């Protein structure tokens, strides 16, 4: 019988929380999820400490993660050339084969030059390194134009494209590179926790059509909404 909006089931917070309390999740599973997150994102020291404190096995050689972590840290501190050098030593095929990733790294170098106020150097760099790659690709050209437009403003950070100057942009680039390295090593690109959260959001979406119930509106706090409010 297809559900109609009129006959949507309603579940109160008490009922919902009672059902939740009845579900069992093993502590070991949660520990593994946390360890998987730390390892995938490259937090080696945290992973080591967590291993000691919880007794959870890391599942991979922590020493092998160090290179990857150094690459990530280099990008996040704005030292893109160092990251490029390191990733090329780890596996030159990564940047050879992934044009979009390569572009984003060069784009980050451009952003750093702009951040340092080196306007002429930035323009020359864009012309020599970035423009040729955009010849065949409109999407990349658009991104290049947005980045170069930073130079038109006296205060690039507060301009409409100022988001590019933000540290979040560095993290985005770092994550993209990290995922590529993981993939080249035959490992999963994303932490399992992310997959679980996506599944939960999808399931909520499905349930929304059939019932009104306490929803998780804030992933970070996992607070449930109040039904009927």
């Amino acid at each position, binding site marked *: 019988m297809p559900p109609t909006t009129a006959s949507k089931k309603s579940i109160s917070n008490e009922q919902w929380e009672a059902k939740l309390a009845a579900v069992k999740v093993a502590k070991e599973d949660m520990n593994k999820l946390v360890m998987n997150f730390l390892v995938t994102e490259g937090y080696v020291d945290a992973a080591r400490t967590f291993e000691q404190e919880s007794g959870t096995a890391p599942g991979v050689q922590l020493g092998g993660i160090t290179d990857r972590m150094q690459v990530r840290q280099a990008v996040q501190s704005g030292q893109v050339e160092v990251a*490029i050098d390191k990733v090329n030593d780890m596996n030159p095929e990564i940047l050879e084969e992934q044009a979009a990733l390569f572009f984003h790294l060069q784009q980050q170098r451009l952003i750093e030059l702009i951040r340092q106020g080196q306007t002429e150097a930035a323009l020359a760099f864009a012309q020599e390194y970035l423009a040729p790659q955009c010849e065949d690709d409109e999407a990349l050209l658009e991104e290049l134009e947005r980045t170069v437009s930073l130079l038109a403003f006296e205060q690039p950070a507060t301009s409409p494209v100022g988001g590019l100057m933000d540290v979040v942009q560095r993290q985005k680039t770092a994550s993209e590179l990290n995922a590529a390295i993981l993939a080249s090593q035959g490992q999963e690109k994303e932490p399992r926790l992310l997959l679980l959260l996506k599944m939960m959001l999808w399931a909520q979406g499905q349930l929304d059509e059939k019932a009104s119930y306490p929803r998780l509106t804030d992933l970070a706090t996992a607070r449930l909404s109040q039904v009927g409010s």
Partner: protein
Amino acid sequence: MAMVARNGNGPSCQQLEEGLKSSDSSTRLQAVRELKNTVIGNRFKKQQFTGLVPALLELLTSSSDADLLVQAVAALGSLAYGVDDGVRAIVACNGVAGIVGVLCSSNERVVAAAARSLKLLYQSPLAPRDALLQQPVLLRLVSLLQQPQHDSVAEAAASVLGHCCTSASQASSIAAAGAVPALVQLLSSQRRSCQESAVEAAQQETARQLLPACLSVLPRLVRLLAAADAAAAGAGVSHAATPAAAAAAAGSPAYRALLGLAGEAGDSRYLQQVPLLLALLMDGRPELLQLAMDLDAIKLLVKLLSSKAAAAAAAATTSQPDATAAAAKAASSSKPAGTAAAKARAAAAAAAAAAAAAAADAGASEVAAAGAACNLLLGFSSVRQPLIKAGALPALSSLTASMLPELRLYAAWALKNASHEAEPEVQQQLLQEMSWQDFRGLLVGDHDVRVQEQAVGLLQNLCKGAAGVEQLTAWSGNELLPLLEEQLEPALYSSLAAAAAGDGSSSSSSSGAAADQQQQQQQHLKARLDLCERLQTALEQLGVK
């Protein structure tokens, strides 16, 4: 490190060359490192710095500093990747020998870098294959295959060997050097890129040697096929917005290009090999057929068949709209206009040629899949059912319309096998899937006599089966019996018999080429005669005298 100078410009060719030739070791190292980081991923820079190949090779042969060697060989590999001029420059300076020399180093990092460089270099068809198949080098490469803790090195070695495996004799050399056990080992690796490289290397002769180990190999191959299938499906969803997805939906060359874009599924070359290997390994061995069935290999093969069939059909229809329109116009016009009809025929011929070119491009894997389906549809009824349930019949029926004679042959053969002593439902399905027009085309219209043979076999099975005279007649729109009678017209029959018998006597005085031609004609006639006899049997089956 000064990768980009103060004014934003990168190092010039001259600056780098000076750095490479400097007497100071740290200057040399810095120059090589800069060069490496500039060219990796940057097609334009590679072209700009191709002239530095000789200087780099000089460093390879003269230096013993591990750090320097790692950077230099990496730069060389990168200069060759995707740039023909780079490959030519390396070959011209006898660069392969230089890189191979470094491959034999005792330093692991150097060996790893050299192996990866070779892998990049040998993706180009311009790289000299035979140079790597000489004994000391070949043995070194094979020994690198057996490095369990260094997956990337083994993978690189397998990839290089795979690219050197373009002829039967090359494959034999590689197999003779003992590569096969190591390749089997690689196939069991956790990393899909290792498996893919191993599949690339396992071709032709080496594949036959895989047979003893095939029980462990087969699951791997099936998993590779499944992974590629899933990646293509997933990639189709995630690339939905791009033109690539539209292209992928339209035809099989784009399907392969999309796999390349998706990255996950790896090089499309291996995707061609997997069905071939599967077909080879399953050839007539019941335990393997059973294993294949258990592993859902059936579903995957059928999926491959139907996707290629759909792609071929799509390619055919998109290239023929003009022909169809012209033909329709010519047909509908009242007077038999010679020029319009000729135009339609010319357009149809051009479109057919284009479609043939498109289909020919996609040759090997469908043929292999159809060949595998042939074997799987044989008497082992436990394997036949799942295959038919998975939709093999529609897929095979559409393949009988292919431009490739091999594909038509295997598809018709597979259908014949499927119909042999088949259940009534299966026969019904066959009649539903296959239109009389298409079947008639195979039976009397096909240029390849082998295809006609299989079509006759299919007809025989149908006649012997539960379908019955009325149903078959209805299916054929009452054309079946007249067609058979026409084919068996007594005059035609006797002239064929005379021609076949008569040709043998006059060949003794002819030259070699003419005798060959006569022999071919004789064989052709004999084949026609055989067909006629079988059609006669079919008629008798239908209860018509």
